[in-house]
């Protein structure tokens, strides 16, 4: 997608591109996270914005690495979807320049609250990452997008600050509302799950979602932004759809705990969990329980070795510290939130049909991360 946008091959895309001032940021060091908040697990992302930092919209999102998705390396990025987003952003720009006061109010929600740490290399956990430490000292280097999330989570842990739900169940996909979106359009609905929040609100296939929570939308990523910043306890999201060219106002109700319906564990398959804690051990859900799917890759050179040594691939975790019935997200949330340096963790796993206790201790001192 980056190549298509930069290159001359698509005339329509090039014409749209030339109406923007284009900036490419290839690393997150020095990037102000008070302005640029986006799904950190994606491979490519775009902000459309004004010179005064008013954000018009986002494009690009992460997706689970399923067998189906592997056939299509980037199912959420299509040139048609990007063109639709660019056209919508240009329209918002015209409206905003004509009436900054009115549009400024509608667009204010597209900028997030100032995060606890505004720069990735300034987070308390960054000193454990050799490369980030060098960048903070003024050397050149690269901070990866997913490291923004990892250092933030590690920093919450180090400072013993409770992780908010939206640090774990982040950027919920429209599926959490019961929506499947057509990625060739800005925000067009292609499926509505029966009995879902979207179905109950009266959303129909073919509707173009024009705004949510009064924010104009340019893409599916914009829907995820609205959900990412929506309260965990639920409430009503006012939405405007265009149906057969006419505006229709709907109310989408989300119940308390709606955010936790989505599995977030897939996000960590590539980036690794908090490396000092899990050494890259990854999990998947199954009918029997959470299954150990993969152990640490070699590049976690000095991360915590104990889970890697004691857990085996295909182990089914049926109990954690006496708690049962956890799915992958619940397990990860418990470990990331409730455990501390030096804590003991006791699993009961099914291995070869036998219940086997597996116990290990989180190191008292966090190892410095050598790998990427």
């Amino acid at each position, binding site marked *: 997608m980056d190549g298509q946008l930069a290159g001359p091959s698509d005339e329509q895309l090039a014409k749209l591109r030339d109406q923007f*001032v284009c900036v490419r940021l290839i690393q997150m060091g020095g990037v102000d996270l008070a302005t640029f908040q986006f799904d950190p697990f994606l491979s490519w992302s775009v902000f459309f914005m004004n010179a005064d930092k008013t954000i018009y919209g986002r494009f690009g999102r992460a997706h689970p690495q399923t067998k189906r998705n592997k056939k299509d390396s980037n199912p959420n990025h299509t040139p048609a979807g990007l063109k639709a987003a660019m056209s919508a952003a240009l329209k918002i720009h015209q409206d905003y320049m004509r009436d900054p006061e009115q549009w400024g109010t509608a667009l204010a929600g597209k900028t997030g609250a100032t995060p606890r740490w505004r720069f990735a290399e300034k987070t308390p956990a960054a000193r454990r990452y050799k490369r980030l430490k060098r960048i903070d000292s003024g050397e050149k280097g690269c901070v990866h997008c997913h490291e923004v999330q990892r250092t933030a989570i590690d920093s919450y842990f180090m400072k013993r600050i409770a992780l908010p739900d939206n640090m774990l169940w982040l950027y919920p996909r429209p599926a959490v509302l019961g929506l499947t979106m057509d990625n060739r359009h800005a925000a067009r609905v292609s499926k509505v799950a029966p009995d879902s929040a979207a179905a109950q609100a009266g959303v129909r296939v073919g509707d173009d979602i024009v705004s949510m929570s009064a924010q104009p939308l340019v893409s599916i990523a914009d829907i995820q932004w609205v959900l990412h910043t929506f309260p965990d306890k639920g409430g009503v999201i006012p939405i405007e759809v265009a149906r057969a060219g006419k505006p229709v106002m709907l109310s989408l109700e989300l119940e308390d705990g709606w955010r936790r319906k989505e599995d977030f564990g897939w996000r960590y398959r590539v980036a690794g969990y908090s490396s000092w804690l899990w050494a890259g051990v990854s999990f998947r859900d199954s009918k029997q329980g959470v299954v150990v799917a993969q152990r640490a890759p070699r590049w976690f050179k000095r991360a915590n070795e104990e889970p890697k040594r004691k857990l085996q691939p295909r182990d089914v975790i049926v109990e954690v510290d006496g708690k049962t019935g956890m799915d992958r997200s619940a397990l990860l949330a418990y470990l990331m939130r409730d455990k501390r340096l030096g804590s003991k963790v006791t699993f009961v796993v099914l291995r070869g049909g036998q219940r086997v206790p597996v116990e290990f201790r989180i190191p008292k001192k966090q190892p410095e991360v050598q790998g990427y």
Partner: protein
Amino acid sequence: MKRAAALLALVSLASAGDDWIQDDIEKGYARAKATGKPLLVAFR
């Protein structure tokens, strides 16, 4: 080597795609203000 090659490819891409501003958001803000155009900021 792989990382260096990837960076080289990115730089080539950018030069092929006319005047993209590389890793300098302040320059982007200034140019957008001067031209009245909106910004497209890509992360990868």
